[in-house]
């Protein structure tokens, strides 16, 4: 068990890392006691997007598959949650709606992934097919404004977006405010730990091996396609989780959450953070979402310019990602200080190399 938490695939090991982890977690848990309710809600909102970022990190950084269409699964699950929540009635059934919506995203990922991976699509073409899929979905949903587009009482409602679904609830109590925040924190912890364990398991070993050299992996007796599909489905399920949570959070979703600018966002988060490490993606995406909102509030017209500059600076100065770059520095220092477990340093630097797909 513990071995899976601290393996070759993930940065951050041992006592120091996990104490930091626990401190951050503890701070996150007592945060609502000190912050005003708006900030707590706002933090839950940021956390919604982290799942999609982690999923993309798994697919792109570890699996070597750059999907440009994570919003496809975000949208399927987001709309799925809406349709299910409206049709099944509110209350505790919303939790079932959430689970089913994620399952829908997984099924969609299974079908699209089978189609692409068994067809031998890779590299940039993988990105283009996923992007096309998400654009088709956005176009389709955009033209469902007419009253004939409904599933049960749920109107898809075109570009204006679908609304009227309940937020997540237990019985008659809506999960909102601090409760929602704690649910989000718990989910993040579960997903993060789960992905860490997956990546450091045998399966994770194979996932990175497939990224490095699919042919060699095949020659070691692994059916590469199955591992790629698995990675794709898990990554997409996480995008789906973000989608369903988003719909439940705002009780609203529109096709623009699926279209082109939205589709590019997760790539920015993950690229900025450092695609080859989960922790970096987690931390970086959160910081970026936070920073970008702050920039947009205080310097509106400059926001997009700053974001463009940030992207440019990332690839020119720290191609492996800013957060990861800093993390690497810290790790080097630390291990350097303590005589240096060369193996660990080597292994870490290994994964920090910019790896192209």
């Amino acid at each position: 068990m513990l071995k899976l938490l601290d393996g070759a695939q993930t940065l951050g090991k041992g006592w120091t890392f996990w104490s930091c982890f626990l401190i951050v977690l503890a701070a996150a848990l007592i945060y609502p006691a000190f912050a005003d309710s708006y900030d707590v809600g706002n933090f839950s909102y940021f956390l919604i997007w982290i799942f999609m970022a982690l999923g993309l990190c798994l697919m792109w950084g570890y699996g070597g598959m750059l999907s440009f269409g994570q919003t496809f699964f975000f949208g399927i699950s987001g709309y799925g949650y809406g349709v299910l929540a409206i049709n099944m009635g509110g209350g505790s059934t919303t939790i079932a709606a959430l689970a089913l919506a994620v399952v829908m995203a997984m099924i969609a990922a299974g079908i699209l992934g089978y189609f692409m991976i068994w067809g031998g699509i890779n590299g940039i073409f993988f990105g283009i097919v996923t992007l096309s899929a998400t654009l088709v979905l956005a176009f389709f949903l955009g033209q469902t404004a007419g009253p004939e587009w409904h599933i049960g009482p749920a109107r898809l409602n075109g570009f204006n977006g679908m609304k009227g679904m309940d937020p997540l609830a237990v019985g008659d109590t809506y999960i909102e405010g601090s409760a929602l925040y704690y649910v989000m924190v718990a989910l993040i912890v579960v997903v993060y730990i789960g992905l860490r364990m997956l990546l450091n398991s045998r399966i994770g070993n194979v996932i990175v091996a497939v990224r490095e050299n699919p042919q060699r992996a095949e020659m070691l007796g692994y059916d590469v396609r199955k591992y790629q599909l698995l990675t794709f489905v898990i990554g997409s399920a996480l995008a789906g989780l973000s989608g369903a949570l988003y719909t439940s959070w705002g009780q609203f979703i529109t096709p623009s959450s699926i279209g082109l600018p939205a589709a590019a966002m997760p790539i920015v988060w993950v690229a900025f953070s450092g695609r080859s490490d989960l922790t970096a993606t987690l931390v970086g995406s959160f910081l970026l979402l936070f920073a970008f909102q702050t920039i947009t509030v205080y310097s509106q017209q400059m926001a997009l310019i700053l974001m463009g500059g940030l992207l440019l600076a990332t690839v020119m100065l720290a191609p492996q990602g800013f957060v990861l770059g800093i993390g690497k520095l810290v790790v080097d220092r630390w291990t350097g200080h303590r005589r240096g477990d060369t193996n660990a340093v080597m292994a870490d630097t290994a994964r920090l190399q910019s790896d192209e797909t």
Partner: protein
Amino acid sequence: MKSAYWLSTALLGVMLGTAAMVSTSRAAEPLKIGLLEDVSGDLALMGMPKLHGSELAVEEINKSGGILGRQIELIHLDPQGDNARYQEFARRLLSRDKVDVLIGGITSASREAIRPIIDRTTTPYFYTNQYEGGVCDASMISMGAIPEQQFSTLIPWMVEKFGKKVYVIAADYNFGQISAEWNRKIMKDLGGEVVGEEFIPLGISQFAQTIQNIQKAKPDWLLTINVGAAQDSFFEQAAAANLNLPMGSSIKVMLGFEHKRFKPPALNNMHATANWFEEIDTPEANDFKKRWHAKFPDETYINDMGYNAYNALYMYKALVEKAKSTKLEDLRKVIATGQACIDAPEGQVCIDPKSQHTSHRMRLISVGPQHQVTVEKDYGTIQPYWLGEIGCDLTKKNDKDQYTPSHLPNKS
């Protein structure tokens, strides 16, 4: 005994004094106006005048002593055309900045994105665009023109002047779909014929096929409710292909100032009904335009959204001053009297108690070959009647829904 008396009077005095101080400091505290307008991204073209209109009104109101003696503070956030960010920022304005009123939203989608959030608070919300109509929601006051003010005037006039056959080019989203629905309904009542309807996805910029479809269908005139910079390319391309048909619209000229952006004669023969367009030539309007251009000399055109945004603040001022309160329920009591009116540059504008939409003075304008704008007909003030007729009555119940000719309230 005596000392106790003195003590208690002194205490009372202190308490009264503090209370007075609190109330004066409350009065000095500015009223907060939350504004959500796109000034970057695809809709910046139309969003910028909206921000300017609000800024102008705030400056004027503050100069003349504020609202109920309180200065007003404008907190503007730019959601950059992103619905998720609209929601994010609406929450921020409502629960962190605790604004007294929320104004803004550009597309219907952005309005629908923030309406559920506003509905859970007791903050009033002003939507300042002309739109497809039908929102029946007690928290929302609509300042723009709606179909019964625009289509019910424009379409009969077009039919009478040019003929009974119309071809519709509409943006493929709710605004276009619902507007087309209105057109169908009105054309049917008039005994006209819709010879073609084409819904165009947002972002499409090439129209050769559309132009030929139109020529095949041989309409007498075109209803153009295409939206966005890309789709506006239709006019240039239709002119180049010498399509040469009369056109009518509810959004062209006064909103997107296409006649200023395109080289003549692309917009020749365009007709629209509007409560505002910059070419209105009345003393009130001219005075307003002068003030606007003095503050924003680079403004290409004062569009109708910007104008409505300006009016929204004066309407809010009027409501608060009549109600002597900023609370939504008190403002709605004023609205319920039917006396919530302001003297706007177009003429008098009043809020209809049943639907909380505004009456407007509507004029039908046409665009000539040199893109000069002429007023063809003045309809006087038109009330927003449709929502009331189909059963929306916000003085009795809050539906929080949006109705269309094919989605009517359940009769109970």
